[in-house]
């Protein structure tokens, strides 16, 4: 326990740095995936192209992406920006898929009703389709948040400080407790992000408190929970 008592300050600093690296990719993933997901949902051609591209991007292993990315976008491989950009790419790749599924899950009867009472395409998207797609979007965002928090640790290899630094340092100095602390705190942060998103969902989508009624949405959420 000595290590932990002597290094509480370090763990706290690293946790904060970890959180700071985790938040931007989740936000970028959510925002960028909305127009892309809409494109994939709306047109058959863009659906094929977009889903293939994000599938390929997601296939590239994270450590490889951290090395390939810098020469392409002209940043240092050892910078925090590199980690944030790489994780944002994964977040976008995952969220485009979820957003497409989410928009697909909106019943076409509802969309027709909205059009029939005079909604423009823009207003229909933001006030009808987007809120109804909400529960599936939330399920996707939870997956993205948890995996982003876990993936931030990879940055330790290229010298970007996070809780992952405890793993590399702990292995070199043979301190299992240091690594264990890193794992536990990372999982706790992931759990915290997850709970916060659920809470946000309850506040922003009060109608889902009684459960998701739409069958297509339930199926999409189930497959998200299970397979991504």
């Amino acid at each position: 326990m000595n290590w932990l008592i002597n290094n509480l300050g370090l763990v706290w600093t690293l946790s904060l740095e970890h959180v700071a690296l985790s938040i931007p990719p989740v936000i970028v993933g959510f925002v960028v995936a909305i127009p892309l997901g809409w494109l994939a949902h709306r047109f058959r051609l863009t659906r094929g192209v977009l889903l293939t591209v994000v599938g390929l991007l997601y296939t590239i292993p994270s450590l490889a992406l951290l090395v390939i990315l810098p020469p392409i976008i002209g940043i240092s491989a050892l910078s925090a920006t590199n980690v944030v950009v790489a994780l944002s790419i994964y977040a976008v790749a995952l969220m485009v898929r979820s957003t497409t599924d989410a928009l697909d899950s909106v019943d076409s009867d509802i969309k027709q009703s909205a059009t029939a009472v005079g909604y423009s395409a823009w207003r229909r998207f933001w006030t009808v389709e987007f809120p109804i797609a909400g529960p599936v979007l939330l399920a996707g965002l939870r997956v993205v948040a948890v995996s982003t928090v876990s993936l931030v640790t990879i940055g330790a290899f290229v010298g970007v400080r996070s809780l992952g630094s405890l793993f590399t340092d702990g292995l070199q100095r043979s301190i299992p407790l240091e690594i264990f602390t890193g794992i536990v705190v990372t999982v706790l942060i992931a759990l915290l992000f997850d709970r916060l998103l659920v809470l946000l969902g309850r506040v922003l989508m009060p109608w889902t408190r009684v459960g998701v009624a739409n069958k297509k949405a339930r199926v999409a959420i189930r497959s998200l929970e299970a397979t991504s």
Partner: protein
Amino acid sequence: MNLFLEAIEFIFTPVWTIVTTERENDIVARTGQHLYFTFISLVAATIIAVPIGYAIGHTGKGREFAVGLSGAARAIPSVGLLTILALAVGFTARPIAAVIVFLVLGVPSILAGAYAGIESIDKRTIDAARAVGMTEWQILTKVEIPLGLPLLLGGIRNATLQIVATATLAAYIGLGGLGVYIFEGLPTRNFVEMLAGAILIAVLAIVLDGIFALLQHFAVPRGVTAGKPTELRATSARRRTVAGVPAESSKG
């Protein structure tokens, strides 16, 4: 972009002309190690996960457990797990540590594929099988397993991706594989070597994924569509409303 050319040159340069460190291994051998780790773990994960997944799918019990498991596996950082296990099992048993990490990554995906495959089958199909007098075992082997095959393969495909990506980290605890180029290049800032390794790993992952995509495509009998994502893209509601085409009947 120059760096990329150099990296590609590195990949295609014969082994004995590379002067970074002494190397008895070449790219083919390291790809072999990488694939070996991936394959062993994948087979082990499949053997563990498929029976459990089928049990969950057939009985409908234990689903919460499986979802919780995959959630937990997603949250645990694989680098942390690998390093702590490497310390725990000691220097000589490090391959065991690596395989355990790969199992932790692979099992939840395959488990999910197995039970989701069975869950995706229309309950009426299973009731019909029961009604014509099939035993539970026959229902499982003749109805549920064949119909659930596409999603199971999808799960194995996900697991392969996760494992092949994480097999890169095997080099960090000195087990070889394609990650060697990255971890060898890191301390010396040899970006050409790192980039070469990263390109090889990415290509390997994409090729494996492509093979599974083909398998998924061909292993599924033509009549089997259960679990395949249906194209839900409806025609524009506006166009349909305007043109007066009746709305599709919503399925029960």
